[in-house]
């Protein structure tokens, strides 16, 4: 039987969830070896439910990771289904198509178990100090030139670090101590979220997060739908001509359709991708669109999966703002 929460209980649980991801974010800032995390806050901390649906996200995060991080957790689950996960595992990837769209953003996630059952993930994405490849250059024509690619792997299996992977990373980046130091700072945050979440669930007698997730996500979805319903229906078009590259401007076109309580964003008509590293991966495009809608409609709404359900994104497969084909350059700054 599903559990329901009264208003006070729900508020307490929700605030404590937000507080635990914020605490993890503070621990990352304090243990990081780079100004990217400490001063630019180019990272985020998220707790998702067992299916990778976002429940709560650190309050001070850059907008893009709001949208990408839970998606990356879902990709992890596709690579490592529940029966291949153990307590103490730490999953890692910087795959541009599964992650944020450029290689320096490394995502780590930790499956959280309660009474032997997978109940959640703690996850972080952070921009590491260096990932190899050409630095800050649009020149690469292939993703291979952009740095080290880490497919979805276990950086730790049941608490044991994969030293082979660590050695490979250290050899392929310019700042091995800083890059590894920041990955360990991310693991500090993962552990902290796990610890605090399990204490919270014990305190409130929650066997899993299913009912709480439904309540939190449902409320945010309803609030977002109500905000969209306030906006006049119709299709709104906009285009932006950017400097592009090599004297060729790039135009991004977008049609945003509001229909009732839903929004459809379509990038049809956007210029094709270019063979330089200035394209934007779909995951990143998606995240930025969600962010844009959210600040225009309901900016104070806590970030979680429910808020994005009323919003759909479509784009031609090879538009410059959206790159789907692998083995091509993609870099979002």
């Amino acid at each position, binding site marked *: 039987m599903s559990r329901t929460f009264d208003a006070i209980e729900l508020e307490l649980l929700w605030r404590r969830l937000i507080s635990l991801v914020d605490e993890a974010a503070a*621990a990352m800032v*304090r*243990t*990081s*070896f*780079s100004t990217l995390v400490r001063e630019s806050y180019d990272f985020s901390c998220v707790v998702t439910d067992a299916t990778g649906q976002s429940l709560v996200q650190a309050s001070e995060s850059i907008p893009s990771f709001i949208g990408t991080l839970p998606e990356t957790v879902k990709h992890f689950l596709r690579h490592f289904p529940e029966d291949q996960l153990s307590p103490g595992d730490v999953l890692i990837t910087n795959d541009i198509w599964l992650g944020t769209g450029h290689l320096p953003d490394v995502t780590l996630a930790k499956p959280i178990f309660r009474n032997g059952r997978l109940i959640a993930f703690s996850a972080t994405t952070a921009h590491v100090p260096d990932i190899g490849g050409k630095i800050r250059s649009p020149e690469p024509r292939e993703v291979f030139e952009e740095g080290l690619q880490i497919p979805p792997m276990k950086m730790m299996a049941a608490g044991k*670090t994969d030293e082979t992977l660590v050695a490979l990373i250290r050899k392929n980046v310019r700042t091995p101590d800083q890059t590894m*130091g920041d990955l360990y700072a991310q693991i500090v945050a993962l552990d902290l979220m796990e*610890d605090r979440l399990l204490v919270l669930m014990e305190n409130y007698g929650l066997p899993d997060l299913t009912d709480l997730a439904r309540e939190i996500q449902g409320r945010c979805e309803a609030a977002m739908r109500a905000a969209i319903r306030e906006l006049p229906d119709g299709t709104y078009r906009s285009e932006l001509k950017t400097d592009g590259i090599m004297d060729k401007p790039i135009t991004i076109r977008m049609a945003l359709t509001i229909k009732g309580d839903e929004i459809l964003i379509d990038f049809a008509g956007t210029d094709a991708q270019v063979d330089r590293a200035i394209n934007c991966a779909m995951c990143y495009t998606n995240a930025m669109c969600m962010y844009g809608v959210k600040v225009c409609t309901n900016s104070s709404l806590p970030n979680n999966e429910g808020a994005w359900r009323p919003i759909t994104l479509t784009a031609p497969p090879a538009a410059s703002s959206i790159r789907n084909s692998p083995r091509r350059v993609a870099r979002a700054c």
Partner: protein
Amino acid sequence: MRYIGQGSEITVVLPPELTEGAVKVAFEAAYKALFARVPPGAAIQFVALRLSVSAPMPGTGGELELPRHASDNALKGTRPVFFPDEGKTLPTRVWDRYALEPGVSIDGPAVFEENESTFIVGPNATARLLPDGSILAEAN
């Protein structure tokens, strides 16, 4: 102290024996208490060293020299006293501080009168006269 490259420090109580090994153990223990795990291979640095020294203040260690009154006159009487926490006036016994014997214990509410001051103890506390003549009041 912190790992070289970090921007935040933690405060570590150094061990009595200042060897590299013992200081590292103390730092890692303090770091793990806050952040659960330490980054492998990172080097440690001092950011600031603090030394605290404590010594008796010159002039401390003196003893109270109080006039002594006969102890059978300790209770001077009873008068109503207003206690804001109680929101009302309570009949309160009034004591001559100089007439109290060391070791005596008096339940609040109570008033202790002396030449320079008046000391009030609320209803939910007990006052005790220490051997040197000081009054120690503790909440019940």
